């Protein structure tokens, strides 16, 4: 089972690597590049939301901070792209640190509010200061090489995926985060430092997001507060992760692929009804929450596990349920 999963991943990876060599359609390449970027954004979002259980409704802020950092460093400090790119991630990480200090000590409700407010605040800031170009946005030096950006995005997201896979699924770090998610008091009793771990996971979520934002800025060559820092980036990240399945790496990736494919088709055929897209996003969140709270991936995996090992079906299903039943009244107080 595990080997088969690895094989499938390797095949997909190889196919994605070879694709630009055999296919020269720029439009398809562009769509794929953005799709891969969304996979990266969704899995990075899931680190804090799915694994740690703290909802970040302002994921787009870190994306925008990365984009703006690269834009400003390249256009105003004349830094080369490769020097600016890591700094975009660092800027996003530092913002996460600053925003996390007052809010991650508190309950999740505060964090959800604070991150959402942060994204609004960053947008306001970009609109009101001079060095971002205000509402007009800023234009970057154009480097028109679709293949370059395709490979850059693919490799970056590949590295993000591998790093997160190791940290969250192989190293103890992931288990610690899950312990906080399931029962924060219990995790504390086991000698973990929840505030520090939450901080680390928030930074781990923000840093790659900033880097992806930086690549995006250089690729698209134009950034402005309404597109790069608007709520659509955050909203889409939430939909992708909730619809795909929180607390895994494959769920958000699956959600990202499906939602992005839907978005591309929608934009291609129904571009006159752009507002309808917003309604569908919102409805999709609400419907996923009610009918598939574990997301598509979680539901699929559970069904599969239930089909192959019927005698163990009840146990893995009831354990998290019991845990959350214990945790629920505590959150209620």
């Amino acid at each position, binding site marked *: 089972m595990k080997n088969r999963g690895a094989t499938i991943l390797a095949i997909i990876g190889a196919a994605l690597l070879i694709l630009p060599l055999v296919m020269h359609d720029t439009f398809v390449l562009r769509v794929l590049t953005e799709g891969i970027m969304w996979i990266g954004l969704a899995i990075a979002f899931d680190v804090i*939301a799915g694994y740690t*259980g703290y*909802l970040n*409704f302002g994921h787009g802020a870190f994306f925008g901070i990365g984009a703006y950092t690269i834009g400003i460093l390249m256009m105003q400090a004349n830094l080369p792209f490769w020097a600016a790119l890591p700094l975009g991630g660092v800027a996003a990480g530092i913002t996460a640190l600053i925003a996390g*200090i*007052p*809010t991650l*000590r*508190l*309950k*999740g*409700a*505060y964090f*959800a*509010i*604070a991150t*959402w*407010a*942060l994204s*609004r*605040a960053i947008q*306001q*800031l970009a*609109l*009101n200061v001079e060095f971002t170009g205000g509402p007009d946005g800023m234009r970057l030096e154009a480097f028109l090489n679709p293949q370059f950006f395709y490979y850059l995005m693919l490799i970056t997201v590949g590295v993000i995926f591998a790093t997160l896979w190791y940290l969250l699924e192989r190293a103890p770090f992931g288990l610690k985060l899950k312990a906080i*998610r399931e029962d924060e008091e219990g995790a504390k009793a086991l000698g973990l430092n929840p505030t520090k771990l939450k901080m680390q996971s928030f930074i781990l979520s923000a840093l790659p997001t900033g880097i992806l934002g930086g690549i995006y800025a250089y690729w698209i060559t134009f950034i402005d507060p309404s597109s790069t820092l608007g*709520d659509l980036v955050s*909203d889409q990240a*939430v*939909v992708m992760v*909730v619809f795909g399945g*929180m607390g895994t790496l494959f769920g958000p990736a699956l959600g990202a692929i499906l939602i992005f494919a839907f978005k591309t088709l929608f934009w291609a055929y129904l571009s006159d009804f752009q*507002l*309808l*897209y*917003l*309604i*569908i*996003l*919102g*409805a*999709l*969140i*609400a419907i996923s*929450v*009610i009918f598939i*709270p*574990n997301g598509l991936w*979680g539901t699929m995996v559970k069904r599969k596990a239930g089909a192959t090992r019927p005698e163990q079906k009840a146990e893995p299903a009831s354990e998290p*349920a019991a845990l*959350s*039943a214990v*945790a*629920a*009244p505590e*959150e*209620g*107080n």
Partner: protein
Amino acid sequence: MMELLPQALTDGILLGGIYITIAIAFSLTYGVMHVIDFAVGEWIMFGAFTGYYLNKWTGLDPFLFLPVIFVLYFGVGYVIQPVIHRVLSGTKGNPFLMGLVFTFGLAIMFRGLALTAFGFYSNSIPSAFSEGSFNLEPLGLTVTIPTVRLVGLGYAVAITLILHYLLKKTNFGLGVRALAQHKDAAGLMGVNSKRTGSYVYGIYVGISAMTGVLLGCILSIGAQMGNEYTIFAFFVVVLAGMGYLAGVPWAALLLGLVQSIFMIYFNPSHTLLAVFAILYIILLISPRGLFGKGV
């Protein structure tokens, strides 16, 4: 510049008064359901548009519609709350996270619906009170008070008093307070958490919608107005301490003052940034709100 100060303070208090009604109902809902409703601004926006269209069709003063709008949106909230309750009491996944995500999804959907139906234009609701204003001259300084804002403050005081009475003097209020303290124990004492939750959510949606009409008369309405008021509601509730009702009026007045002082003395477009900066500092120094009594 000093001669503008009384005007700034008056404007701030009049505006802050209206924020009290938004935040007090919002805080109450959080206290009972333990979930933040991200759609608070959208309820305000829907209420404002309902008032706008009712006024357009009938030509009557929007203040006459307030009870109608309350009843209408009370019904909407009463119908929607069981869905949120179901999400919150689910056993799959993390119910608390799902509740938050659910209201976040509702907010996105509502915003999309409003933008589709009403477009990007901004408007205001005409009322008999909109035109008038009167001057006060304390200590030789002139302070202008628009009638509509004074009526708004009167409305806010009335709503606050009614809610206070409801919470402190009735059996229903006792049940609500018990639920806010301990859900399971309240259930054992015979409080029907489902029905009480529905009533509270209905009251909250109704009050938010009514306040929307008022804000439409005083300021303006637009399909995108929701975001701003969601931020204000969050600001007030966090400043007061989440779920601590007694702190709400002071936090709301502070917000009104910050806003009016920035309007007059600084760059108005920096108001939101100032609001965020204050929020950040408060969270850093006293995370449980100004009074340290939040949950």
